[in-house]
């Protein structure tokens, strides 16, 4: 058996099927595209929220500020006591001067910074950044730290962490439902496309059987049709998503600016490392399986005596 020749033949027939059944093929591709586009956006949000959660857990911790006029000695004392707490991983001291320098660098232009001269408007903003072993133990420990003498204020990240976690869960559930629904529609459309194709070619298929064409030979064009639909339905949204990743994610971030405190997103290649193969698998898988099972049903009538 010359398998390449047969493959080329089946591929050609598959393309022909699609052309002959244009309307349904386009509808299938469009549904698949919509489905995987939505899937991509959900994934963008999920992965970035997750990224922020991770960042919150390891980088942000809490920041505590001291009472006005606190002595250096007291600060050193506090540092020791906090470091001794079990849930605390590390404590980093940042002086008021350092804080001001950083602020100037990230938020002010040089000219603007000049106008302050040697004044430090953030005179009382010396702080500890406290990092915890994990987010779970944070709440209790933060309460303890707030009670310590000399502590003025604790900037807690827990609210944000909680909100993000909740958002994450809602998004996950919501996206699973919506995407599941769309996948059902896409599968249904592919199945209809194949059913139409089989019924158009009913006579042809029986002739093929009679002159000895194998089941695979008869099925292959329809399977190719399904796979091509799936492939297109995956590639179209992927290329749009790829081109517009930062635009999309920034748009979302601006809509939920209270949540997306940073504009520090997971980079494109990292996102598509997962999204591309998953989308392709979903598209091609649904195209192939939808076609395969429909054929099982449709071709049963042709089983010879």
């Amino acid at each position, binding site marked *: *058996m010359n398998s*390449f*020749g047969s493959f080329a033949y089946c591929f050609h027939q598959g393309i022909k099927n699609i052309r002959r059944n244009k309307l349904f093929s386009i509808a299938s591709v469009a549904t698949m595209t919509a489905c995987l586009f939505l899937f991509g956006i959900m994934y963008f949000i999920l992965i970035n929220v997750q990224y922020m959660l991770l960042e919150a857990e390891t980088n942000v911790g809490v920041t505590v500020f001291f009472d006005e006029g606190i002595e250096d000695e007291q600060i050193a004392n506090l540092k020791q006591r906090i470091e001794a707490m079990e849930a605390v991983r590390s404590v980093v001291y940042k002086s008021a001067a350092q804080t001001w320098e950083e602020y100037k660098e990230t938020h002010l232009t040089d000219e603007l910074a000049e106008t302050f001269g040697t004044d430090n408007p953030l005179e009382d903003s010396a702080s500890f950044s406290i990092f915890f072993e994990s987010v779970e133990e944070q709440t209790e420990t933060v309460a303890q730290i707030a009670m310590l003498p000399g502590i003025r204020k604790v900037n807690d990240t827990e609210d944000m962490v909680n909100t993000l976690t909740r958002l994450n869960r809602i998004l996950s559930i919501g996206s699973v439902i919506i995407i599941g629904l769309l996948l059902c529609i896409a599968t249904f459309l592919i199945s209809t496309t194949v059913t139409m194709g089989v019924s158009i070619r009913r*006579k042809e298929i029986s002739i093929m059987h*009679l*002159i*000895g*064409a194998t089941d695979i030979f008869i099925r292959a064009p329809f399977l190719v049709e399904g796979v091509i639909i799936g492939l297109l339905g995956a590639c179209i949204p992927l290329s749009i998503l790829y081109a517009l990743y930062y635009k999309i994610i920034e748009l979302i971030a601006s809509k939920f600016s209270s949540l997306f405190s940073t504009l520090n997103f997971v980079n494109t290649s990292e996102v598509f490392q997962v999204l591309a193969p998953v989308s392709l698998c979903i598209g091609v898988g649904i195209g192939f399986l939808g076609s395969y099972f429909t054929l099982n049903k449709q071709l049963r009538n042709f089983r*010879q005596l």
Partner: protein
Amino acid sequence: MSDWENVPASELQEQKIQESDPALESVSENSSRAPINPLDAPVIVLEHVSKEYDGTTENHALTDVSFSVKKGEFVFIVGPSGSGKSTMIRLMMKEISPTEGRIYVAGKDLAKLRKRQVCKYRRSIGIVFQDFRLLQDRNVYENVAFAQQVVGAPKRRIPKEVSKMLNLVGLSGKYKNRPTELSGGEQQRVALARALVNNPMILLADEPTGNLDPQNSWEIMNLLEEINRRGTTVVVVTHNREIVDRMQKRVISVQSGVIVEDKKGGYGHE
């Protein structure tokens, strides 16, 4: 590789017989036929075959039909319309199964072939249908090439084989036409080209000259005789008394589903 379609008809015959199919042996024991001589072996054997289409016993398409066709034989099946000739062809290609009796082709019991084997079997025979059964959405060339694609012939060999075949049936000028753009006789010749393009070991032709004028009919018959001379077993259903009388081959006459005569020579009575 033991694919039937890749083995030349002559070789295949011996190979299949030497396999000593138990089914075949039991048949030869039960029947009064002489022990099988591989050189004189029957390729097609029908044993007490009956076929009723709708299950009503009084309306048999075929009743207790038995005959065998030897390797390399040329056989006409004649009879009035509705006598069961096409039914025989359809049974032999396993398009339908007999209600009773057994059919062996190349030593294989057709009833025992599994689905895959049925495909292989059909690829090893060439069939011309009474109603042609061409693929309507493909042109003449593609229809013939299709038979080659089905057996997985190498892609670069297909154009050569197909054009050779279309030349042979005199249709090379119309290779681009769709079946709907052809006359009945032309469609018939496409069907014949499709049946022959794979060099089948057996050719089953149901009225291959039914729509042809005498001139074309003779050309087709000469072609079939040539194919037969090269080793293909040929079974032809026909109404054409003139041809049958002139060619002096074995003639099986059927009437109302029963074989009424089976002898070498002309069309016989009626």
